[in-house]
C-alpha cells in the first residue's frame, strides 16, 4: 500500500479543508468565543468517544469508567503544565498524562477484563469512582476544590491536531491485524480464542489504547478550560461518552464523530432551557434506544456509503 495513494491524498485534502474552514470562521468571528467552547467540547468529546468506541464498540468490552482515565490525563497534564508553562511543557504534560492513563489502564485491565458484560461495566464504574475519590483526597490535586489557573496552551490548532491524530491512529489500529483480533473478540470471544487469538492480550491492549487517548482528551480539557475538579469526571461524564458512542453506533468511528457533534449542538441549543435540559436529554436517550437501538450508523462508516456493496467487504 502506497502512502501517497489517491485515497490518502483525498483524505489529507479533506482534513486540511476542514481545518482551514473552521480557522477562517474563527478569525472572521462567525464562530465567536461562546461557540468556540462548543467547538472545543466537540473535539474533546470526539477523542473520548472514538477511544471508548475502540474498547466498547470494536473490542466489545463494556466500560463505564472512561471518565476515570480522562481525569488521570487531566490532572497529570495540569500539574506538569502548571510547573512548566510553555508549549513544550504542555505537549509533554499531555503525553505524560496519556501514558499515565494507559499504565493505569493496563493495571486495571489485567484483572477486570476477565469479567464480562454487566460485571465489567460495574467494575470499571467502580474503578472510575475509586480514582475520583483518590483525587478528592490527595494533597497534590487540591481535593474537592480542584486545580485552577492551569495555563491555557490549547487552541483550535492543537485540538484539531490531537483530534486527527486520535482518529487516524485508532482507525489504522482497527484496520491492522491487531484491530481485526479485537473485532474477533467482540464477535465471539470463545471462537476467537480457539483460533489462536490471545484474547487477554488484545483486550488489555485495546483498553490501554482507549485509556491513552482518554488521557489525551483529559489533558486537552484541563488546558482548555484551565480549571478541573474531581466531580467533573464523575459517573455522568462516563455516561455522556458512552451515550455518544452508542448514539453514533457501536463500531463506527464516523458515527461517534457525528454523534459528538450532534449532541454538542443539542446541548448548546438546550442551554437556554436549563430547567428541562436534562429531561429532554433523558427522553431523547430513551427514545433513541427504543426506536433505533443500533445507533445512527450501526457498525457502518460514513465512507461505506460512497462505496458499492462489493467493495465494503474487501480488506484493503
Amino acid at each position: 500500500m502506497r502512502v501517497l495513494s489517491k485515497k490518502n491524498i483525498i483524505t489529507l485534502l479533506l482534513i486540511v479543508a476542514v481545518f482551514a474552514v473552521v480557522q477562517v470562521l474563527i478569525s472572521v468571528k462567525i464562530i465567536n468565543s461562546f461557540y468556540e467552547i462548543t467547538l472545543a467540547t466537540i473535539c474533546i468529546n470526539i477523542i473520548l468517544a472514538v477511544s471508548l468506541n475502540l474498547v466498547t464498540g470494536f473490542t466489545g468490552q463494556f466500560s463505564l469508567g472512561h471518565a476515570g482515565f480522562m481525569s488521570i490525563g487531566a490532572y497529570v497534564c495540569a500539574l506538569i503544565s502548571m510547573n512548566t508553562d510553555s508549549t513544550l511543557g504542555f505537549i509533554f504534560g499531555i503525553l505524560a498524562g496519556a501514558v499515565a492513563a494507559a499504565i493505569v489502564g493496563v493495571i486495571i485491565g489485567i484483572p477486570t477484563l476477565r469479567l464480562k458484560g454487566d460485571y465489567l461495566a460495574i467494575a470499571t464504574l467502580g474503578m472510575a469512582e475509586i480514582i475520583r475519590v483518590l483525587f478528592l483526597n490527595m494533597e497534590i490535586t487540591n481535593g474537592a476544590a480542584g486545580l485552577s489557573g492551569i495555563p491555557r496552551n490549547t487552541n483550535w490548532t492543537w485540538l484539531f491536531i490531537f483530534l486527527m491524530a486520535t482518529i487516524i491512529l485508532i482507525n489504522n489500529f482497527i484496520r491492522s491485524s491487531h484491530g481485526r483480533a479485537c473485532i474477533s473478540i467482540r464477535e465471539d470471544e470463545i471462537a476467537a480464542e480457539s483460533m489462536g487469538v490471545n484474547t487477554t492480550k488484545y483486550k488489555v491492549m485495546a483498553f490501554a489504547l482507549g485509556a491513552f487517548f482518554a488521557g489525551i482528551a483529559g489533558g486537552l480539557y484541563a488546558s482548555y478550560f484551565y480549571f478541573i475538579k474531581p466531580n467533573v469526571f464523575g459517573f455522568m461524564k462516563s455516561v455522556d461518552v458512552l451515550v455518544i458512542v452508542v448514539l453514533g453506533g457501536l463500531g463506527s468511528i464516523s458515527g461517534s464523530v457525528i454523534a459528538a457533534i450532534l449532541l454538542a449542538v443539542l446541548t448548546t441549543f438546550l442551554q437556554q432551557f436549563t430547567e428541562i435540559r436534562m429531561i429532554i436529554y433523558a427522553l431523547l436517550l430513551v427514545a433513541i434506544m427504543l426506536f433505533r437501538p443500533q445507533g445512527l450508523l450501526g457498525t457502518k462508516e460514513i465512507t461505506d456509503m460512497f462505496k458499492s456493496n462489493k467493495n465494503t467487504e474487501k480488506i484493503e
Partner: protein
Amino acid sequence: MEQFLQQMVNGISLGSIYALIALGYTMVYGIIKLINFAHGDVYMIGAYIGFAATTFAKLGFFPALIIAMLASAALGILIEKVAYKPLRNSTKIAVLITAIGMSFLLEYVMMFFVGAEVRSYPKVLSDASFNLGNVVINMQQIYIVVTAIVLMIILQYIINKTKIGKAMRAVSADKDAAQLMGIQVDTTISFTFAIGSALAGAGGVLVGIYYNSIDPLMGMMPGLKAFVAAVFGGIGSIPGAMIGGLSIGIMETLVSGYGNSMYRDAFVFAILIVILIIKPAGILGKNTKEKV
C-alpha cells in the same frame, strides 16, 4: 470494643436499608438480566412520597410507608412497561442505556417538580434512645431493622410459598421453558418489578427518617452501592442480597468510623472489584459454566 459494637449497630441499620434496595436489583437482574439503574431513583421517589405523606397529609409512619411502597410498585411497573418491555429482545447495551436514561429522567423530572434543594423529613418516629452498656440504640434504628426484617420475611414467603413466587423462580431459571409451561412471563416480570420497587420505596422512607434529609439525586450512590451489595451476595440470590446489603452497610460504617469517611465510597467499590475477581458469582451465587 464499645465503639466497635456501636459501629455495628449503625452498620446494621444502614445495611438493612441497602439490603432492601439490593433485593430489587437482584430480583430484576435474576429475571431479565438487566442492571436496573433506575432502581436507585425509584428509591428516591419512594422517599419523596413518604415525605409528602408525612408532611402534607400528616400521616404516621406505617401508613406513609405503605403508601410509598404502593406508589413505588406502580412506578416500577410503569417503567418496565414503557422502557424495558419494548427492548426485551435487543442488545444488552441498548437496554442498559435505556435504564440510565430512565434514571436521569426520574431524577430531573423530580428536580423540576420539587426543586433541587435538600428537604428534611418530619419527625414521625420518636428519637428516644436507650443504652445497652455504652452502646446507644435509638428507636429509629430499631424501627428500620424491624421493618426491613418483616419485609424480607414477607418477600421470602411470596417467593417460596405462593404461586406467583413459583412463577418468578421459574422465569428466572428459564424464560422460554416457563412460557411453554403456561406461565405468563410478562405478568411475572411486571410483578417482579412491582415487588422490587416496593422494597426500594420502603428503603427510601427509612433512609429519609434515618438521615433526615432527601434530595432528587439521593438515589445515585445508594443505588450503585446496593448493586454492589447484590453482586457481593451473589446476584440473583435473595438471601445473598440480604447478606450483601448488611455486609456492605457494616463495612462502610466501619471504614467511616475507624478510617476516613471520605474513602468509604472508594472502599465499597474496591470490595466490588475484589469480589468480582475472586468470586464473580458472589458469596451465595452459583458458578455457571460457559457453553460453546
